[in-house]
């Protein structure tokens, strides 16, 4: 069956040579020769160091950021082609061990690579390298901010707060940036639909005139520049020392979402400046002998971020600013040890271990959102990682192979826990005093009830894993394998006041079986199945570790609570969601009042958080939830004839989160791959492949409301509900937290078809011409089906409006509708011709066509007037059609 693998490798080689390395043309491939070389020449070409240079030019017919996402060809027009591959040093039959290589690839574009390697084999080697990688993100992004590229972003002086005065004269609303939605009719508080007044029109027009021209296109991209070098010294026959380093500078801008104002929950997408440097070092001693080896080494990674923060004006009030911190500089140092020993000719033991320290101590930013200042000046964060891996493999008989492995992986976060008190971005201190001023020893009124009092949670994780595998091959043509794996994970946080982890312990057992067989030397098949069962002790109240005030009896409980939130939850066995009961006849008192207004969720003011952090009872975060996992893998390889090879592969995965009521409930998927390779002879072949992948996931949630005994909306007569599970507003409100119509589910399905075709024809024109071409078509789409719904008030059910006519609903139930399909279609066609000119030269011709069409509803919410609470960026889905042509001359220098 190796012939099948070989043929497939040849196919992919052609495909990638044309498409992947678009501009790295010649050096990796032997050039056809126009004139047959003599025997001596042919031998020399095969055995002697050589040098090749490629020079040419190409043209891109249309600029596209997406086409040039990584290949440096985002601009329309000409570009140079320059590659070289030079080798030198002694000949194989000389007494010299000196060799060197200098290579350059894609030197004409911003994806260039350059490397140099000098070595005296058996003595030492030195290598140097440079690599540039540009990543294009968006060329349709627009922003009104001045100072793009820096970390201080101001709105222009003429900036007016976007608002729709006919709907709300004061609230920020980006609909004002569109003449359609900004000047549309609105519902007045009196329940009338009226067009904007002249004054309101003037205000919107002024906003449009001031703000819209402020939006300027700003291209978002990042660039990585890497320099590296290394050397190795052979200290003796058995000992070697190696060291290498790599420095990477990354700069540019990328999009960053930021809350511009927590007052109205608005956000902006900022052009975040990037200016970082990462230095990585490795050094080690290596010992190798017949029966064993030993490696001792060091790895260090130092990350430096020169942008410490980004500051921007609030679009609702350009005199106010907000600040966000950037990723902090950090360091990682690790010592590694690995060894292996052949206990016997058929038994091998290998051990590796490492000890690492990850640190971060960037000074904290401080601003007016911190009413009590900083509890400490920096995190002084430390994570100690320890890893041990032991494997013992044995072949007691020719037919039997055994493996036992143990793995220990400890991620010990020793960062100090401290209390951080803050208001959300640009949020003013509220009128009501915090319940915890007294408990914190603060004067009454120091903190208001909309303050956040949080503790950080340094997550730690310790993994133990045991693997046992046995393979039995009764014949050369057939084998069976059985395996068992146990994995236990313990999680914790140092110094949090309560267990911080949803799953402090999880255990997973995996059973594996595999059968492989070969028939008649032309047919090979493999079927593998694995079943895993993960059990977790799930703790729904772990979120309380974030809010230390949950363990404090409120000093001035606004709802009459007599114990702490945690105390009450512990007593009752409830979660922060509260009991699933209807609205009680009379308000609950005492500790029960912690669920306010009675039987609802825990009020934020009683645990010191502006947002509700609790989760639904029955939610299991999927990465730490009970899970049953099934995996099937199969493949069939058939060498149908000397010319035709066929392959098929099928994968199936199914994860069931059997004890989860909400969150991810199930994920399943399958993939089918088919390949065929027709090879007429060494000069002509036609491989084809097709892959279909189908991934589905199902999750659920609950858009529960608040239990109240309110019986109408706006006016007393507005009581009817249209659709949903309740007929009246009162019934709906009494059951706000247990309304089955608000339970929703999502069925997300992602499918992709990929078709590839390659045609290669060599040896035309008397051996001078090679042709190759390939086509890849991809059709990927995402469908999201949703069930459930939500309620929306009739916009005319207002206190100041007339009572709705009899039979007119005060509340509508809005059934969920499926999301529009997100689809991407990509077609790539690439053709190449290599024509030999003389014995040492060739001409390469390249023609490529690419087309991409994508549709994505996410972009609809980024446009002027879309009405989302996000400042528009006017970005568009990627779409392009273009061609690339190239011609280059390759000359063999020696």
């Amino acid at each position, binding site marked *: 069956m*190796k012939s099948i693998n070989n043929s497939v490798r040849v196919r992919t080689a052609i495909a990638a040579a044309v498409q992947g390395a678009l501009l790295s043309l010649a050096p990796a491939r032997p050039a056809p020769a126009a004139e047959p070389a003599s025997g001596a020449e042919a031998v020399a070409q095969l055995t002697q160091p050589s040098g090749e240079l490629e020079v040419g030019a190409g043209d891109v017919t249309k600029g596209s950021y997406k086409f040039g*996402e*990584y290949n440096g060809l985002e601009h329309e027009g000409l570009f140079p082609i320059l590659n070289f591959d030079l080798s030198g040093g002694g000949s194989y039959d000389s007494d010299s061990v000196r060799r060197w290589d200098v290579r350059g*690839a894609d030197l004409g574009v911003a994806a260039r690579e350059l490397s140099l390697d000098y070595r005296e084999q*058996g003595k030492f080697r030195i290598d140097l390298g440079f690599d540039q990688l540009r990543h294009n993100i968006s060329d349709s992004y627009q922003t009104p901010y001045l100072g793009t590229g820096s970390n201080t972003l101001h709105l222009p002086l003429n900036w007016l707060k976007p608002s729709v005065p006919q709907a709300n004269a004061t609230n920020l609303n980006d609909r004002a940036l569109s003449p359609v939605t900004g000047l*549309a009719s609105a519902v007045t508080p009196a329940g009338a639909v009226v067009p904007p007044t002249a004054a309101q029109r003037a205000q919107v027009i002024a906003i449009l005139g001031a703000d819209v021209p402020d939006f300027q296109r700003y291209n978002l991209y990042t660039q990585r520049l890497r320099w590296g070098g290394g050397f190795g010294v052979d200290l003796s026959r058995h000992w070697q020392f190696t060291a290498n380093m790599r420095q990477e500078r990354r700069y540019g801008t990328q999009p960053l979402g930021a809350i511009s104002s927590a007052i109205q929950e608005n956000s902006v997408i900022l052009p975040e400046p990037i200016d970082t440097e990462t230095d990585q070092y490795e050094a080690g001693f290596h010992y190798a002998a*017949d029966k064993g080896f030993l490696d001792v080494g060091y790895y260090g*990674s130092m990350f430096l971020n020169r942008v410490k923060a980004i500051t921007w004006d609030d679009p609702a009030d350009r005199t106010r600013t907000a600040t966000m911190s950037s990723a902090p500089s950090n360091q990682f140092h690790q010592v590694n040890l690995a060894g292996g020993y052949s206990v016997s000719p058929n038994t091998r033991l290998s051990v590796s271990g490492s000890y690492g320290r990850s640190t971060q101590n960037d000074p904290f930013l401080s601003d007016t959102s911190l009413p009590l200042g900083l509890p400490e000046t920096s995190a002084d964060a430390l994570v100690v990682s320890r890893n041990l891996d032991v494997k013992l493999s044995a072949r007691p008989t020719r037919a039997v192979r055994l493996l036992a492995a143990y793995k220990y992986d400890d991620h010990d976060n020793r960062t100090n826990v401290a209390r951080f008190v803050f208001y959300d971005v640009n949020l003013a201190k509220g009128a009501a005093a915090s319940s915890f001023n007294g408990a914190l020893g603060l004067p009454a009124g120091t903190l208001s009830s909309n303050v956040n009092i949080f503790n950080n949670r340094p997550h730690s994780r310790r993994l133990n894993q045991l693997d046992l595998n046995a393979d039995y091959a009764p014949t050369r043509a057939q084998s069976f394998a059985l395996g068992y794996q146990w994995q236990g994970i313990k*999680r914790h946080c140092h110094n949090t006041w309560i267990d911080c982890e949803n799953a402090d312990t999880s255990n997973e057992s995996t059973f594996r079986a595999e059968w492989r067989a070969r028939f008649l030397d032309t047919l090979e098949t493999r079927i593998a199945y694995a079943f895993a069962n993960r059990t977790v002790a799930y703790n729904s109240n772990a979120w309380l570790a974030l809010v230390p005030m949950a363990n404090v009896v409120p000093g001035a409980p606004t709802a009459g609570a007599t114990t702490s939130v945690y105390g009450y939850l512990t007593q009752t066995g409830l979660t922060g969601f509260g009991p699933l009961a209807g609205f009680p006849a009379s308000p609950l008192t005492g500790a029960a009042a912690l669920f306010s207004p009675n039987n609802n969720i825990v009020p934020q003011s009683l645990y010191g958080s502006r947002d509700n952090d609790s989760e639904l009872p029955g939610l299991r975060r999927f990465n730490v939830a009970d899970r049953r996992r099934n995996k099937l893998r199969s493949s069939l390889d058939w060498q149908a004839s000397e010319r035709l090879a066929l392959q098929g592969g099928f994968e199936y995965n199914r994860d069931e989160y059997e004890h989860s009521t909400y969150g991810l409930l199930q994920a399943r998927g399958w993939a089918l791959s088919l390949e065929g390779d027709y090879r007429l002879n060494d000069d002509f072949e036609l491989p084809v492949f097709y892959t279909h992948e189908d991934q589905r996931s199902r999750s659920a949630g609950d858009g529960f409301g608040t239990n109240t005994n309110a019986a109408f909306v706006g006016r007393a007569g507005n009581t009817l509900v249209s659709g949903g599970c309740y007929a009246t507003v009162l019934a709906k409100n009494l059951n706000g937290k247990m309304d089955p119509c608000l339970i929703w589910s999502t069925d997300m399905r992602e499918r992709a078809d990929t078709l590839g075709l390659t045609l290669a024809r060599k040896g035309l024109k008397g051996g001078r011409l090679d042709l190759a071409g390939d086509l890849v078509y991809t059709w990927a789409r995402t469908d999201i089906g949703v069930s459930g719904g939500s309620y929306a008030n009739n916009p005319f059910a207002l206190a100041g409006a007339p009572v709705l006519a009899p039979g007119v609903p005060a509340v509508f139930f809005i059934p969920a509708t499926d999301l529009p399909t997100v689809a991407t279609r990509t077609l790539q066609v690439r053709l190449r011709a290599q024509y030999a000119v003389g014995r040492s030269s060739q001409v390469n011709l390249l023609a490529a066509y690419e087309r991409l069409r994508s549709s994505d509803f996410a972009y609809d919410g980024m446009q002027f007037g879309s009405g989302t609470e996000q400042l528009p960026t006017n970005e568009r889905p990627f779409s392009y059609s273009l061609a690339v042509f190239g011609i280059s001359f390759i000359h063999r220098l020696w």
Partner: protein
Amino acid sequence: MPAFVLLAWVSANACGQEAPAQIDRGLKGDAVCTRCHDETEAKPVLSIYKTPHGVKADERTPGCQSCHGPSEAHVKNPKGSSTRPPVDVDYGPRTTAHAQAETCLKCHAGGQRAHWAGSEHERRDVPCTACHLIHAAHDRVMNSITQQETCFACHKTQRAQTHRISTHPLAAGEMACSDCHNPHGSAGPVLMVKNSVNETCYTCHAERRGPFLWSHQPVDEDCTTCHTPHGSNNTALLKARTPWLCQECHTADHSGPINSGANLPGGNATTVNGTLPLANQNPRSQTNARNCLSCHAMIHGSNHPAGARFSR
């Protein structure tokens, strides 16, 4: 201390690396083979002399028979048959993958191959020559641009995923499979080059390493909880679209309500079944645009004292 014990143990058992005495690893020995396997071969074996295996002045380099065995029957063809008997070690179906690997590991143990024994590829009988072209002047699996050709010959689903709209720069040849995976085995999962998925990702994304003041538990634990590295229909290589990906774990406060087509601009919720005038429409922000990440942008961790919700 354990390092020294292990070192002493290994050193005491070292046997040296000299080739068997009967093998002539020099050109004279090679000539036994190259007098037939010359420049006319369809797959020229002579190119090996351009590789480190062909540096004859280095006394460690092998000769043809070092790897293929003395192969006397093949060389002498004592029965005079038209098809010569095969060489002792032919790196084809006749020779087990284990035997092939043992030949290579005589010189290439340790380093990148430290975890070969018991690794995924070793257990599935993938021979070294399934990936490496020993005689070729340029072994394409050692070239970052062409390496994926070899890997995708077996890993076809991953090949297809690299053609999605959101990918790492694999198809552009700016990244190699071996930047993340060590095909010879490793201490990490799925042949990661480092001890864990995250440690591997941090080699290029060190800004995600922290440790942060406010850490996000699944981020700390495994990047692939949310990301699928080979390619995705969703931007930033996410396994599923946001906000639904976020809602797989978060159902509190504003992450609880439904996000459906009705919440899009012009959707049924926006228009309240057609009764809400245009200027009052307000599609749900969490469903649109960058949704959750419009505000919780520091989702990998925040170091701002007020960044507990990953929004500063």
